[in-house]
């Protein structure tokens, strides 16, 4: 279970303060596919990065499975991050490593043996349907294939949570669907909790059981996807749903 308590993040740039997150309270249960939706600049990426502490919150706490991890550093922090996979919009694969080496990177830094790494790597490539690409390099793959590689990499350490930061935003709609299906399959079969950051309501509709709407650094609405989508209360939710007509 991931709990964010009264989380805030403020950046100071050239003496000017910029609030990215304010008073965020959020609980993500085990087994959820939790959508966090909002317009560009709403603070979604910052929020998801606070979960694995790629961003340090200015105030508030991050509690994972009952443990306050907000102040983790060094080996403790590395251990925490190893247990939380992450998938990015631009895939962020290692261009000079083969697909197999990309997938096994989390095991490599943990110090696993080559044999152990390769066995797990092939298992994962099988899972994402890329067994034949083990010795290819990322540049030789399509966008959808690259995202599958990064999903496999995120799964390497048997994480209980995967964070997806706009994981399908760089993909066309058909590829998006196949990646979303893969995420749902991972959630069902492996019981991995998935946090999905997106600006597309379609993504939430298709795979998320719960959703939180982020606007102006705050959560303005949250609940079960079915409830929020059928009876949206906040203006931004309505706009994201296309319920408010474009008035330009």
């Amino acid at each position, binding site marked *: 279970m991931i709990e964010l308590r009264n989380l805030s993040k403020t950046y100071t740039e050239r003496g000017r303060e910029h609030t990215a997150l304010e008073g965020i309270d959020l609980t993500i249960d085990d087994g959820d596919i939790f959508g966090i939706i909002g317009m560009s600049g709403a603070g979604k990426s910052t929020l998801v990065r606070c979960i*694995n502490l*790629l961003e340090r919150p200015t105030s508030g706490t991050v509690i994972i499975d009952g443990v306050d991890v907000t102040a983790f550093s060094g080996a403790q922090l*590395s*251990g*925490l*991050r*190893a247990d*939380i*996979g*992450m998938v*990015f919009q*631009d895939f*962020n*694969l*290692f*261009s*000079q*490593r*083969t697909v197999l080496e990309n997938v096994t*990177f*989390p095991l*490599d*830094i*943990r110090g696993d043996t080559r044999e152990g790494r390769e066995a797990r790597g092939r298992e994962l490539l099988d899972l994402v349907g890329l067994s034949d690409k083990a010795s290819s*390099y990322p*540049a*030789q793959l399509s966008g959808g294939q690259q995202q599958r590689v*990064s999903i496999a*990499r995120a799964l*390497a*350490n048997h994480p209980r949570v995967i*964070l997806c930061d706009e994981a399908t935003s760089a993909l066309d709609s058909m590829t998006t669907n196949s990646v979303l299906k893969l995420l749902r399959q991972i959630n069902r079969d492996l019981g991995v909790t998935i946090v999905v950051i997106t600006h597309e309501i379609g993504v939430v509709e298709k795979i998320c059981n719960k959703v939180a709407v982020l606007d102006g650094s705050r959560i303005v609405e949250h609940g079960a996807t079915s409830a929020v989508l059928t009876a949206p209360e906040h203006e931004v939710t309505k706009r994201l749903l296309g319920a408010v007509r474009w008035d330009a």
Partner: protein
Amino acid sequence: MREFFAEYGQLLIDGTAKTITMTVVSTLVTYIIGVPLGVLLTVTAPGSLKPHRTLNAVVGWIVNVGRSIPFIILLVALIPVTRFIVGTSLGTAGAIVPLVVAATPFVARLVETALKEIHPGVAEAALSCGASTRQVIGKVMLRESLPSLVRGASITLITLFGYSAMAGAIGAGGLGDIAIRYGYYRYQDDVMVATIVILIVLVQLIQTSGDLLARTLDKRNR
């Protein structure tokens, strides 16, 4: 032609060997110091892995000062330092110290440039996998920029070829020394031309093999 080689062949071979030794040894030493400096410049930059404004500014300033001093001045100014480190300011060994001092700031910037080419998201992905700062630097940043580092190394080698010729002027030996003593002081154009031809061939060789190696290493475009 035969006469020329009989008279100067050995001289030119020795000179070439000295020039290559000076250049290769100083390039190696330069990289041993320059790579960590380049890494330091990169990771202490704002928004990078370990931002540290003061350290970044100080190292950057020292590197810029190093790059501002003309090599010929550095060469003379460093004579006492060179004597202290290698025992002599003469010959091949004496040239290595000023060559390293001159090339290190240059290499630090080359390494910095190569590392900054890497998309920050790639380092972030490594962190998200649980990598430590040291692992991000070694297993991701340096590894991802390897082709670019190789290209930088051939530029450095070639630059040091040029510098080593200048070092020849203050008694470092090598092809530059031969060119000055025979070509300049004794008006022996044939010897001078021969040294230039050798230098041209060496530079072409380094550039071509460096490019080839970089291209073979780079897995991005195929």
